[in-house]
């Protein structure tokens, strides 16, 4: 597949600057460790938050960070789409006989994000292992669903950010509110926030679908249902459809306005 050939090229490029690559890898790992450390500090003082313990929130942290770093690593092209526009790289995509979506996907694989990926995976495995309940097939399935859904949601957000950057390359920082902000906020259970915020992160940007709602199922919280909690990741993935359509539409816009 073309994507893997591109990935190989990206890897080749990175190995040209070995020290730099190694340091970036390390720095990415440190970023996630620092986030973990600040979470640890918080729980060291407050013990629980709205009935959630540190080990439970650690699962949440790990899921969110895993999905985010996975998307950042492998779908980086959408994440840095503004650069592609500025450099004229997007124009070059139009003269190739492949879809713009696919070429964007291939255009960037940021292997240094593997540093984050590894840390979050380690935390995920550890925090899941120390849970007091037994992991049945249903719970493992829900966990996998959460991971897939999270990756899809971050991809969708990156695509929406990319569409946004077609309209204003300079204002792109705003997108961070949803990606980085969403990531930072949603690593904690959503019921600690005011209702309005919870609603935004459930119905508009469905972070709750891969995190809060199914996690309540994992931890057997009171009042969970199969339809409302265990299957939530399935609902969340729907966001990719409007995201794809908006991306398509904004490319048309780019076609008719240029830069």
């Amino acid at each position, binding site marked *: 597949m*073309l994507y893997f*050939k591109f990935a190989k*090229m990206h890897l*080749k*490029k990175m190995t*040209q600057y070995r020290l730099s690559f190694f340091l970036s890898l390390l720095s990415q790992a440190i970023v996630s460790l620092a986030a973990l450390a600040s979470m640890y500090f918080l729980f060291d003082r407050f013990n629980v938050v709205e009935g959630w313990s540190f080990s439970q929130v650690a699962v949440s942290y790990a899921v969110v960070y895993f999905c985010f770093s996975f998307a950042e690593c492998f779908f980086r092209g959408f994440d840095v789409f503004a650069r592609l526009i500025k450099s*004229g790289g997007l124009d070059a995509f139009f003269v190739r*006989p492949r879809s713009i979506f696919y070429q964007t996907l291939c255009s960037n694989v940021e292997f240094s994000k593997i540093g984050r990926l590894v840390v979050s995976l380690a935390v995920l495995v550890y925090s899941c292992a120390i849970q007091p309940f037994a992991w049945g097939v249903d719970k493992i399935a829900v966990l996998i669903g959460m991971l897939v859904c999270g990756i899809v949601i971050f991809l969708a957000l990156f695509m929406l950010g990319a569409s946004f950057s077609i309209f204003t390359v300079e204002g792109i920082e705003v997108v961070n509110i949803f990606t980085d902000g969403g990531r930072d906020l949603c690593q904690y259970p959503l019921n600690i926030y005011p209702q309005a915020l919870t609603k935004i992160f459930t119905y508009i940007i469905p972070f709750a679908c891969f995190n809060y709602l199914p996690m309540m199922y994992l931890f057997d919280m009171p009042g969970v249902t199969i339809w409302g909690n265990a299957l939530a990741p399935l609902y969340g993935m729907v966001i990719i459809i409007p995201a794809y359509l908006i991306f398509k539409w904004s490319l048309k816009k780019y076609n008719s306005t*240029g830069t």
Partner: protein
Amino acid sequence: MIEIKNLTKTFKVAEKDKGFWGSVKGLFKRRYHEKRALDDVSFSIDEGEIVGYLGPNGAGKSTTIKIMCGILTPSSGDCKINGFTPWKDREKYVKDIGVVFGQRSQLWWDVPVIDSFHLLKDIYKLPKEEFETQLNLLVEKLDLKPLLHVPLRQLSLGQKMKCELAGSLLHKPKILFLDEPTIGLDAISKLKVREFVKTINKEMGITVILTTHDMNDIEALTNRIIIIGKGKLLYDGSFDQIKYKYSNIRTIEIEMEEDYGDIEIEGCEFVSKIDKKYTFKTADKHFKLTSFVEKLSKKYKMYDVNIDPINLEEVISKLYEELGI
């Protein structure tokens, strides 16, 4: 092969208010005015032609090229290339075109050139044998062998351009768009690029559309030029005709022994003066240097006289001037 009819492209340009509140206002409400980047442009190009597409910066050259490559959609008008409308059948259409942007590389900066070529093979879904034959042909013609295994960043500008050209021809396009292919190159590299473009046009029958600011490119490659200015098509015809039109323009440089200030003299236009070096210009067909020098020598002491026929750059700038662009 290429049929362009009444192509028009307008852009909406936001009017920006000045000052802080102006830009705050601009966030919510914007006024636009229309800018015509292309205004009713029509031309056609036959298979196997080389055409120079000229015009000053901002004339609409790159807008046209972008439309022809399927990057931009025009506001109105039609463009049929190879039977396709570029922006409608983009993915099918672009299999038959090659594009080289002189200022921007399409190859990978940090990896050996050959790897970029192999990736292009996969992007265009080329069969292995077909790719190999074409690659070998290009390697031989462009003398690329020593460059293939070197990362692009270590190559000189001229070498890079050779690789770009090869990269744009791997899929055997029928049409090649060259956007300022000789920009920044040294004299020898320029010659090589021109030589190569001529060869592929002759031997492979590739139609070439080329934009450039270097008139020597045109001189070497083609006789047909299309000139565009302020979005309008201004000239479509032979380059020789234009050269002939201005062939009687000559520049006379005279070095005086003293500084005489500005000098007015009949039959010749005073252009400039640097220190004691005077420059005159004439468009008079019957201009005679001897009588001119004679006239001057009556009043002034001269040190050296030099006469130059008009060069190509001047032809085009003269033409732009005349066309009002």
